[in-house]
Structures are given as structure tokens and as C-alpha cells.
């Protein structure tokens, strides 16, 4: 019997509905889970995506692209296959793809997290027979601290740097993580700690978030700031690829921090020669993965993108039918870029 989804040379394909999910080469019809570049490839003839992420996807795949936007939960029939999108909690407009055909239900999670995030709709468990899950942080060492603690740590670091007369350069992925930091850093406070500047890659996505009605702390594009700017009180948000570049020179004495799930491991921080690591991720941690898998009620789990082998082995030992499937990245995961490897983050 043919499976509802198959892994092809272009990615996951639904033959019955004739569409791909997050294909890695241009195809006729692509259902996109979210606008990170490793999931949204330009050049397809038609795209289907969740409405809140439409503008982000357009920025990624080009203004002329044919994008059909669906509200979360809104069904679409494609050759008798019922397709709907449901919040994944990863970034603005991120979606799980639910596919139903002949009474069988599949859900492709894309990237997701279970923690609340003021910049996007919260993850919704969707019941299914087969759940295709990511596994970026699929080891039990990955367990996220409460978000409020992490923001307090970031503020304390920033305050200590201000006192020492150093600029605070905080690296965060330019789409999603940077905006989550900007939405959360002053949440519940009545005052701002100081001016926040952004790298161009971050600023572009901030504009799209604000246009979508997401409240972010005010920011100034660093490259547009006057030459005489005093950076010693500033927080500067930049993509990780800006570390060590010419662009950093303008800030004078500075301390560097990185907001990422990888910062849970000391070695990952020390290898990058960063002063501080802040553990905040837009991916599910180990308990999150297990909880999402459990709540899906799926009897079969496909595991993609990350620590596939340990997750599959663990699930099998728990009695779940699990299988590892290839991701678009050939070879094995290199942790240095796995959390949203984003080509738009190269250069200033």
C-alpha cells in the first residue's frame, strides 16, 4: 500500500494531492511550514502557507510568487486530499501541516516549540495517525529554562555591561529569535533599559513583524545611526554570522552573547569564544518533543532534522513505531548551523 507521504529527491511528497511539503527544490505546488530558508525554497509555481506568515514567505521567495494564504484550521481540498495548517509556535506564521485522505491523518510538524511566545500563535496539538516531527534538540540534555529567567539574565548582563561601559552585542537568528527577544526583553516592565540597535538582517524582519501587528521594543538600524553614537549603553541585535566581521568594529569595547538552544552546552559557547550564552530556543526541547509526540496520539512517528537516531531508538523502546527520514542537508548534522541556517544572515 502506498503511503500518504513519501520521501522523494525533492522532499516530502503527497502523491494523492500532488503537492510537496517544504521541498528543497522548485516544484509545482509547495506547502510551506514556515519562512526559514531551509524550509522555504524560492522558484516553485505555487505556494500554500499560513496567513500570518505570508509576508515573511514573500520576503523569502520573491514578490511575484503565487502564494495562497490559509487561516489556521481552514481546510483546503487538493485532489480529494484535505489539507489544513495549524499553529506550530516556532515563529510568526509557522504551521504544522495536517493531511487527511481516506480516513487517515498525517501531521508534518515543521519546526515547533511548546513554550509560549508573544510573537506567534501557540503550538496546538493535532491528533493524527502519523506524526512527522523535527528533532533538532532530540537529546535529554536539552531542557529549556523558563523564558522569564532567560530574559532576566539577558537584562542583568546588559546592565553589567552598561556599568562597565561596554556595548552588549547579542547574536540571535534574524528571523524569529531576534523578534522574540525584542518582544520579551521588556515585557511587564515600565521602562526600557537603554537603546536597542539592530543589524540590517534583523531590522528587515522586525519591520515585517511590526506590520503584522506584533509589538516589539523600539529599535534603530545600527548602520543608520550617526557616526558619533555612544554604543556603551546599547544592546545590539545581530545575526550570528556578524560575529568577528568588520561590522562589529564600530561598537568599541563590547561583550558578546548568543541566544540559542545550543547554549545549553558550555562547549558550544566556548568554541565560539562568546562571553555569554543564553538558553532560549524556538525549537522543542526533549520534554517538548516527547510531549508533542504523545499528544498527537500518533501510532507511527517519522523523525527528521536533528538527532534522529536517538529519538527513533528511544521511541521504539517506548513501543512506538518510529523511523528516521533524511533531511535536505546531506551528511550529518553540524550543530554550528542547524538551528535555522539562514543565508540571508551572511554579511552586514
Amino acid at each position: 500500500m502506498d503511503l500518504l507521504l513519501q520521501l522523494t529527491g525533492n522532499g516530502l511528497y503527497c502523491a494523492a494531492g500532488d503537492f510537496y511539503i517544504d521541498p528543497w527544490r522548485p516544484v509545482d505546488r509547495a506547502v510551506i511550514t514556515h519562512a526559514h530558508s531551509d524550509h522555504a525554497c524560492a522558484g516553485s509555481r505555487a505556494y500554500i502557507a499560513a496567513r500570518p506568515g505570508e509576508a515573511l514567505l514573500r520576503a523569502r521567495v520573491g514578490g511575484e510568487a503565487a502564494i495562497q494564504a490559509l487561516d489556521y484550521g481552514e481546510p483546503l481540498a487538493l485532489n480529494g486530499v484535505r489539507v489544513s495548517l495549524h499553529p506550530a509556535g516556532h515563529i510568526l506564521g509557522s504551521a504544522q501541516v495536517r493531511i487527511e485522505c481516506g480516513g487517515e491523518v498525517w501531521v508534518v510538524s515543521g519546526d515547533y516549540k511548546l513554550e509560549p511566545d508573544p510573537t506567534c500563535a501557540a503550538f496546538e496539538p493535532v491528533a493524527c495517525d502519523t506524526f512527522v516531527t523535527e528533532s533538532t534538540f532530540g537529546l535529554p540534555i536539552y531542557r529549556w529554562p523558563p523564558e522569564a529567567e532567560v530574559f532576566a539574565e539577558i537584562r542583568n548582563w546588559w546592565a553589567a555591561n552598561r556599568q562597565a561601559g561596554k556595548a552588549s552585542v547579542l547574536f540571535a537568528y534574524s528571523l524569529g529569535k531576534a523578534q522574540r527577544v525584542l518582544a520579551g526583553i521588556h515585557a511587564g516592565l515600565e521602562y526600557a533599559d537603554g537603546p536597542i540597535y539592530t543589524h540590517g538582517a534583523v531590522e528587515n524582519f522586525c519591520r515585517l513583524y511590526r506590520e503584522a501587528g506584533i509589538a516589539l521594543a523600539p529599535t534603530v538600524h545600527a548602520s543608520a545611526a550617526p557616526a558619533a553614537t555612544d554604543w556603551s549603553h546599547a544592546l545590539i541585535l545581530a545575526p550570528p554570522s556578524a560575529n568577528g566581521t568588520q561590522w562589529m568594529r564600530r561598537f568599541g569595547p563590547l561583550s558578546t552573547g548568543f541566544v540559542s538552544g545550543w547554549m545549553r552546552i558550555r562547549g558550544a559557547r566556548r568554541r565560539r569564544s562568546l562571553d555569554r550564552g543564553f538558553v532560549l530556543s524556538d525549537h522543542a526541547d526533549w520534554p517538548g518533543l516527547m510531549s508533542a509526540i504523545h499528544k498527537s496520539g500518533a501510532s507511527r512517528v517519522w523523525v527528521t532534522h536533528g538527532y534522529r537516531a536517538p529519538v527513533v531508538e528511544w521511541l521504539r523502546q517506548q513501543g512506538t513505531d518510529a523511523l528516521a527520514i533524511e533531511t535536505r542537508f546531506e551528511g550529518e548534522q553540524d550543530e554550528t548551523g542547524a538551528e535555522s541556517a539562514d543565508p540571508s544572515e551572511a554579511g552586514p
Partner: protein
Amino acid sequence: MKAFAELYAALDATTKTNEKVAAITRYFSSVPPADAAWATTFLIGRRPKRLLESRKLAQWAMEESGIPEWLFGECYQAVGDFAETIALLLPPAQSSSNLPLSYWIEERLLPLRDTEDEARRASLVSAWREMDERQRFAWNKIITGEFRVGVSQSLVVRAVAAVSGLDAAVVSHRLMGDWQPTAAFWMQLVAPAAGEADVSRPYPFFLAYPLEGSIKELGGVGEWQVEWKWDGIRAQLIRRNGRTFVWSRGEELMTDRFPELEMLGAQLPEGTVVDGEVVAWKNGEPLPFAQMQRRIGRKALGARILSEVPVVIVAYDLLELNGEDIRERPLEYRRAGLEEIAPPDSALIVSPVVLADTWEELTARRQEARARKVEGFMLKRLGSPYRVGRRRGDWWKWKIQPYSVDAVLIYAQPGHGRRASLFTDYTFGVWDGDELVPFAKAYSGLTDEEIRQVDAFVRANTVEKFGPVRAVKPELVFELAFEGIQRSPRHRSGIAVRFPRMARWRTDKKAVDADTLDTIRALLPRPVDATPP
């Protein structure tokens, strides 16, 4: 434990020495003396005898976390640090300990010495439950004896000097020798006037800097005393109160390892401290360092090993004469004293002075180094005092060029700590006919960027996996440098080298261009006398 865990985190969060010293100073001035004493112990790399086996610790951590062994292994691979892996895997913390470090060591850790496994397990699991995640990590670091946080002894000395107002040299001296980490010790350490000097206490070693730039920049050859640089174990031989002590540079008391030197001590005048190199020595010349390692490796020193590998101390300097600290006196004065106290035909050989009228002559004589089985020259400025630690200016080491060989990367495995989950530990092969035989392992010498490139190569070119070890396509060629070479029946190539490291990535060479085992065999010294198998 709170303050100590915070200290660990603060030290871990910076690579700047000033910030580290500031963090240690803050810690010392805010905790009870017993805590300061214990922290000093750990920071300078001493530790109580290891009480718990890693295997057991891992097993208890797995039980407490509900993690099977294979998954623990996967996690350890990703983290690269045992103590950290456990801290990350334990169930989320429910509490945090306000009890002092000394309580955790003295009341909780040390008593485990006299208990059975079950009681140890219960005590350890309970300790984990009483601590938060950071505390668990610092605690695990202590109990596994892997306490490395990038703090050198000199940073600790600076911090103690800062809180006590003492001179760093005084603190250094007080930290040497045998002491117990107690509140009383800490009070003595920071006390204004020197307390009773411990009879066994050595002086801090003065270490030479490698010579940079041209030898001519040192001025006239006549301003320098030149000696051969011997390859052995740097040590101080102390004779005080009718007793003899031998300290290694790693501050290990090694008297009982060297009965020859203990006998020598009895021939020295009261109140003598000699700085020198303990060298395996036979028929008037050094034995290969591997022989010394063989001897050090023996638990019991039988008559056979003592006669096969006898040791001497090749004396460099005299630090104490007739009970007086003479380190501030000029080199010539100390050298004269050394020659005067040296007993004839004993296990003390005064390091011979090499005479040369010009730098050119000296440079030429440096070529004798390999035949003499030494590492090169030591240059000591006449008139200079015996200083503390590694300082530029008065002592230089001028080593001979290392051996070098082009070899092919054949195996790689992930490193530890900041190199975890990167392939950084390499095995290199050289040609034996049309086969590459493993020849040396090397871990150091590449830049971070080069490591990343090699890591990517390993991932893309793995041909076989053996546990964490990858066999890779033989393609990358590196120039390996090493100091010594000798025959070894334990190595497949039949050769063992000393201090191998990567000198250069030879991107200009292909695997076929690498050296052969025959060329390397040609570097072997001719057999001296029949060394026992």
C-alpha cells in the same frame, strides 16, 4: 555551595585573566576561611583522593534520570564533559543549597571514603537533590576530579595577594609543599608575617621562556651562562632538619620514587635546596625519556628496575645554602655555591657550562644536542636572580629544531570540552609499501578555522566507523613536528615519538607525497646499549 557555584560560572564565563582574578578575589573576601581554603585547593588543581568511580557515578545518574546507558552515551558525546552531562541530565532541580563548600566536602564527600556502594549512592543522589543545576555541575566537577576552569596557579596567587595585601612571591611560596585545606591554613596563608616555614616546602620554580627572534638580540655571548637543556623531570631536592624531600614541578612529592636522591640528600649540608632535572642516567649519559617513564610507571621499585634505570639529578641552581634563601643573589654566587656543595661521584651532576666565544660558535655547538640526548641550550643571564614563574628576560630556552614528517590523516575522533562534537583528535599514517600504517596521534597545532575545515572533511569522507572513531579517506597531509623518536614494540609502526603536533596543513601535498616508514626509521638514534625489552 551557592557562592562556589557562582564562582565557577563566573570563571567559566570569561577568558580575560583580570576578570577571573576579580571573581576569585570577590569569592575569597566573601566566604568563610575553610571555604576559601577548599576553593584554593581545587582552583590550583589539587584534589582529595578520588573517591567515586566514574562508572558508578554514571550509573547512579542514569537511574536518577531514568536514562538508559546508550542514551547517556549519546549525550556524553554531544556534551564532551562528564560532570556537565550528568548535571544536564538529572531531573529538574527542586531546591538549592545554602550550605558552605566546606560542609559539602568535609561532611558529605570525604565521609564516603569509609562507606559501601549503597550508602554512597544514597548520599550522592541526596546531594544532587539538594542542589540546583549550577551547584550540581560544580559539585560533579569536584567529585570527578575534573576541575579545570582555565585558572592557572598564578591567577589564584594574584587573588590571594589581593585579599591579603601580601607579595605574590610570598603567597606562591606558602602555597607550595604539603598543606591541608583548613580554615587554619587559610588564615596562615593570608597572615601578614610569615609563619613557621614548613621544612619540606620548595620554592616556586623559575621557568625559561622559549627564545624568540635572533640570538644576537641577547647582546654579547659573554653576558650569558650557557648549559645544555636536559630532558627529564624538573625537581627540587631539599635537605632540611636531617630530612630529604624531592618535589616535582607539578608539586608532587616524589622522594620515595627516587631512593638514589634520598641517599644523595644525606650527603648534602643541612639547609640546602637544589633545583635541577631528574634524569635517567647510565654510563655517563642520559637514557631515553621512555625509560624514565617506565620507571615512574612502576608501583614497586624492585632491584632490577633500579639497576636498569638509575637516576641522577642534573643540578641547575642552588636556591638555599646553609638555611639561607639565596635566590636574590647573582647567578655566579649561586653557581659557585652549587659547585662547592656537590659531593664528588654522587647522584648529583652539576649541569656543565658550555663555553663559546661567539654566538656563531654556540650555534654550531647546538648541533651536538641530539647526539648528547639533550633538547638544546639554556641561556642564563649572568648576575640575574632566581625568579618566580615563567618570565622573559633572564632565562631562555633555545631548543633544537623539532623533527618533522609529512603524514596522512587516517582516523579522527571527537575531542572534549570546547572541542566536544568536533573531530579534533587525529591519527596519522605514513607509507609502508602501499599501506598507510598509523604512526602518531596529534591534537594540537591547528587554528579553530582549520579544525572546522578538517571536521567538515571528516564528516563528508568517513569510510568506516568504530565507535566514536572515524576512518577517513586518506587525503589530507599534515606536517607533524615532534621532539624525540625511538623504537617501540608496542606501536604498529615500531616507532614512538615524543610531543607530536601538527606544524602545518600541507594543502600543497597529496597523500602519495607523504613520508615513508623507512625515511622515519632513518631518524632513529643508533642503539646505545642493549635496552631491555
